[in-house]
Structure formats: structure tokens, C-alpha cells
């Protein structure tokens, strides 16, 4: 009998994975604890489940929560895609990706169709995702009500009693003062009719993607030691008034300068001669260009 027979998890090379060049970043007890936390989060959609967040080889605020979630659910048979602002080549995305693959033996891809786990900061890929996808979002501030209440004890009470009155008043005052609701990214949403969550800071553009999504979304906040989830086929409703429609980011007339898209989240490339626009989802854009024949 070899060690691998006793501890199958200790040899993460088989079934198509790549050999690991880094030791595990989390001990097995921690992974189990995080998996249990995730199960609770899935069972109570939108509830921020506290967990004993470990220190990661990336700084707090740099995806330490998302990294712990991914490391707890990834296996050597998985393929991970990691993006930052929608870009696979973003420097922090690259760093997280190599930590994940080098320590677990998981494969990597930039194409959602080839991936099983997508860890992301600030975006959901433009592609349609499947029911076997897990989206892991890195969360800097998990508390949606922090803008209206600072006291932790009061915040706990408000969530427990579903008392979101202060949030509604703040949205109302915003609308009255400014003519529109000025909340930008991380728009507060009611999950499954019960808990209000902070939608990381993904843009409003991505919010409709979460509603009744076929995929599981896990939110990891390492610094604040919270994990929450939106399970598949769950209602995610942005907080707004019946006569004030929820507005996503949209720039009339703007199209992607490289792939021509007018149905993706575009970011501005400023220039004195007039701005250009490009897709923030770099791999989606790349595949569209390829399909159009100008690679």
C-alpha cells in the first residue's frame, strides 16, 4: 500500500491534471471547513456565512476569499478560467491562476466552454454559462448595507429581520436628489426574496445574468471572512421601485473597436480625438474577431 492509496487527495496528478509545482496552499481541514461553509451558503441563498478565513499567498483585498473558495472546490480534473475586469491577461488574474493550477494540478483555459470553474473579479463572462459551471466572485466588501449603517450589531439585526428600510430610503433619496439611482457597481439585489446581497462590484450590466441563472455563483470575501451564494435557478432582483426601471450601463452608439460588438460590456479607451470602446471580456472579443476572420 502506498501513501496515495491512503490519501488520494495527497497526489493530485491523475485524470488529466498537470503535475503540481507548488505545495497545497490550504491544509485539508481548512478546505473541509470552507466546503461546509459553501454548503450552508447554498442552502440559505444570499446569507453571508462567517468562516475562519485563512491567510493566502495573496494580500487581503486581492482575491484571498475567491482563492480560498476555488481551492476548496477545485479538483485535478477541473479546468479553471481566471479573469480580472473580464481580462484573462490581467496581472492579478495571471497570478491567481498560476497559484491555483500550480498548487492543485487543475487545467487552465480562457474559454468558458472549456472551463468548469470561473474565478472572477468584477465581471461575469459574456458567454452563456452552463449548469455545470461554478462562478467564483472575489468580494471586497460583502456587506450591502454598509453605506447606510456602520454598526455591525445593527447590521446583523437588519439582515436577521429582513429590515431593509434604510436601504429603500437611501435609494428613494438618491432618486429624488439626482433624478436617477446613482448606485454604480455592486448593485444591491434581493436574493430568493429574502436576503439583500452586495453583488461584488460587478457592473449593473451583469446583474440580469445572475437572475435564474443555470450556474452556481459563490461569493468569497476573505478579509471580511464571509461566503455567500446564489444557487442555480434563484431569483436575483435588483432593488428598485416599480416605476423606476433598473438601468444597466449603456452608451448609445458605442461598439467595440476590435470586434464590432454592441451587445457586450464596453470599456472606454480615451483619446483626445474621441474615445474608442472595447469589450471588457477580452477572450469573448478575441473569439469573435477570430470568427470574423481577422485574427
Amino acid at each position: 500500500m502506498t501513501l496515495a492509496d491512503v490519501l488520494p487527495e495527497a497526489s493530485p496528478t491523475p485524470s488529466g491534471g498537470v503535475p503540481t509545482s507548488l505545495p497545497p496552499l490550504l491544509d485539508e481541514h481548512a478546505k473541509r471547513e470552507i466546503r461546509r461553509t459553501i454548503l450552508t451558503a447554498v442552502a440559505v441563498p444570499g446569507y453571508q456565512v462567517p468562516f475562519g478565513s485563512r491567510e493566502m499567498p495573496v494580500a487581503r483585498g486581492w482575491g484571498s476569499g475567491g482563492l480560498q473558495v476555488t481551492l476548496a472546490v477545485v479538483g485535478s480534473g477541473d479546468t479553471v478560467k481566471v479573469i480580472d475586469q473580464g481580462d484573462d491577461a490581467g496581472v492579478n488574474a495571471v497570478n491567481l491562476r498560476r497559484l491555483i493550477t500550480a498548487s492543485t494540478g487543475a487545467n487552465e483555459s480562457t474559454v468558458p466552454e472549456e472551463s468548469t470553474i470561473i474565478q472572477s473579479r468584477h465581471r461575469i463572462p459574456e458567454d452563456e454559462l452552463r449548469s455545470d459551471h461554478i462562478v467564483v466572485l472575489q468580494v471586497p466588501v460583502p456587506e450591502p448595507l454598509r453605506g447606510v449603517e456602520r454598526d455591525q450589531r445593527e447590521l446583523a439585526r437588519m439582515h436577521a429581520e429582513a429590515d431593509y428600510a434604510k436601504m429603500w430610503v437611501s435609494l428613494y433619496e438618491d432618486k429624488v436628489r439626482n433624478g436617477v439611482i446613482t448606485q454604480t457597481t455592486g448593485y444591491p439585489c434581493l436574493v430568493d426574496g429574502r436576503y439583500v446581497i452586495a453583488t461584488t462590484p460587478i457592473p449593473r450590466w451583469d446583474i440580469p445574468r445572475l437572475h435564474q441563472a443555470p450556474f452556481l455563483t459563490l461569493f468569497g470575501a476573505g478579509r471580511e471572512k464571509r461566503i455567500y451564494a446564489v444557487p442555480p435557478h434563484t431569483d436575483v432582483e435588483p432593488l428598485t421601485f416599480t416605476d423606476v426601471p433598473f438601468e444597466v450601463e449603456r452608451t448609445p452608439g458605442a461598439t467595440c473597436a476590435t470586434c464590432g460588438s454592441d451587445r457586450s460590456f464596453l470599456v472606454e479607451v480615451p483619446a483626445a480625438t474621441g474615445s474608442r470602446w472595447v469589450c471588457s471580456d477580452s477572450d469573448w472579443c478575441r473569439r469573435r474577431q477570430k470568427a470574423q476572420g481577422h485574427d
Partner: protein
Amino acid sequence: MGYAAARGGLDAITAAEQLVRTLRLAAPSDWLDGDQIVERLRLAVDRVMGEGGIWDEQLAAMALRQAEGDLIEAAHLLRSYRSTLPRLAYSEPVEADDLTVLRRIVPAFRNPPGPQLLGRTSDYTGRLLELIDDDRAREEADKLTAARRERVRAAAGSAPAGTRDERRPQRLMTLLRDMDLLVDRRRDDDPEPFDITRVPARPGAPRSARLATMARAETGALVNLWYRNILGPDGYLHEITLGEVRHGWLPVPVVHPHTGHPVEVGRVRVTEVEAIEDLDGLEEDRTRFDVGYGLCFGHNERKAIAMANLDIACDRDAGRSALEQSVLLTTDGLDAAGFLEHLKLPHYVTFRSMVERKMAVRAARPALQEEPS
């Protein structure tokens, strides 16, 4: 596989890593070995062990060297190393009276029971920059080394300096209690200490959570929180009178898995502080004092004193103000520094969303643009 698309970022960070590594390792001066750091930069090593939550001088020295002297970065390296280790056992509770003191001062009395032992401190040394050249420093070092050897040789065979009572002095609290000058907050039950590494501590947490949080907190954060509360707008915090400031060795007993008996597996140096609080609240006992407690890894009196003062301040505040939340949630060095520095990450998706809302406000309020600015 679309791996090529991710190349640009990887090349850039590999180059940055290589630049840091090359300039650090290939510096023209001598290699800085672990012993040099432990012996000559001991206070930095102590801080890193305390904030990193690991007692291991050599590991802390390696972390400090790798972090190019950045204390928070070094503590981060130790903590993420910790995350890879399984927790095999908990140590047994140890009596604080088992502390063998290297230094002990009692500012509250001129002649307290037990010694006033200054020990290794530069508290009373003029802060003058020693503009001494390397040759003279080496000469002095040689003389001091020789003199030290001579002292050790002369003392060989005789009893060690300081009696047991002097090295484990009675604490001032005992005397104050005998004088009936202390309110008695001791509890009869013996609850398990709150483990901040496994359960997030939030306001309303037991005192042990507060103490553990402060023991691992960033020293500067505690000093600042203390000073803010003395002078700043946050609140009013009493200056305590120090009862005990101790630095010394504490044994670490662990139950032997086979015999079931505690065995000493090592010892750690700690700084321990007892702070006497003058109770002056309307509902408080005006005839007695109360005591705050601070204890942290290594020699770090600044931290232990701030900790003891904040401990008693939290207790007296009893959740009326946000002090406890500040202590529990804002003093961790890794949390604060990491979150501050994350602002360096790309934020162009969120910024795009913000610009879009500025335009939306303008569109909703066209009159705004005609107003003189």
C-alpha cells in the same frame, strides 16, 4: 486553449518578480544570514512573529529578509505559511506567574514587592545617532565579547544571578487585591478561549476574542487606536497607571498523546502588561480600581501597553460606543494593508460604471449644466 491571450500579464509579473529577486539576492554586500537578523534586529523579528502568529525566530528572519524589511509583508509570509499547516494540538493553559522575567517594571510603586528590573531597554538612553565607523564598532564588539566571556567564566559554578523569587516575582495585582483596592471581575466558569483563526470575531464577542485579536494586531494600528481615543474625536479613554510591564519566558505545555500528561514542548518570550484603571463612572465602584491586560509575542511593550489600556476601555465601554468594533475589525495589519493596496488593482470596469452614472445624472438634470459653477 486560449492560453496565449494570458501571456502578456504573465510575462510582466514574471519580469517584476525577477527584478525584485535579482536586486535583493545579487546585492553586492554580504549575504544576510538568519542569525544576524535574529540577533541584531530582534525587535523587528519579535514584531513579525507576533503579527504573523508563529513563534519561530528563524522563520521570521527569513520572512523579514524576503520582504526586504517590510514588517507587514513579512507577517503576511508567515501567516500564509501557517495556512498550509494542519493544527495538530492545542497547548495547555499556562499560569502567567510561570513567566521567568528578563525585565520587569512597576511604575505604580517606588518599591513594589519583587524587583524593579530594567533589563534590556533603551528607555533611558539618549536617542543620539551613533556616528561610529565600522572599524571602531568591530573593535568595541571584540572587547565586549571578550569581557562577556570572562564574566561567564567567572560565574561558572556559582548560583545563577537572581533568586527564583526575583525571576518570578509576585505580581502587583496580588498586593492590590490584598489591600482591597481591586474590583473583583474574576469569573467562576472556565470558558474555552475564542479562536479568532477559526471563527470571525464580531462585536459582542467574548473578551478572549478581543485579547487574541490585539495580540496579533499590527503594533502601529493599536498605538494609533489608543492615541485616537486619548486625543482624537472618537471617544475618551483614560490613561491607565501601569502595574506590571514584564518581558520574559513562558513555558508551552502540550498534553502528550500517549501518556496524557502535559509536557513542556518549548518556551516563548512574551511581553505582559497589567494596567490599573481609575474607575470614575457614575455606576462604577469609586473606591476601587480595575485592571486591563495585555500579552503578546516577543518584546513589544508599546503593543502590550496599548492592548491592556484598550482591553479595560472596551470592558468599561460595554458596547456603548464603536470601540470594540474598532478593536476587533480594524487593527489587523494584513487586513488593512491588503485592502488599502488593492486600490492599485485595475478598477476600470467599476470606473466605467461610475462615469456612466455621472452622465446619467447630467441627462436627468439638464438644468444643472446651465447653473454657474
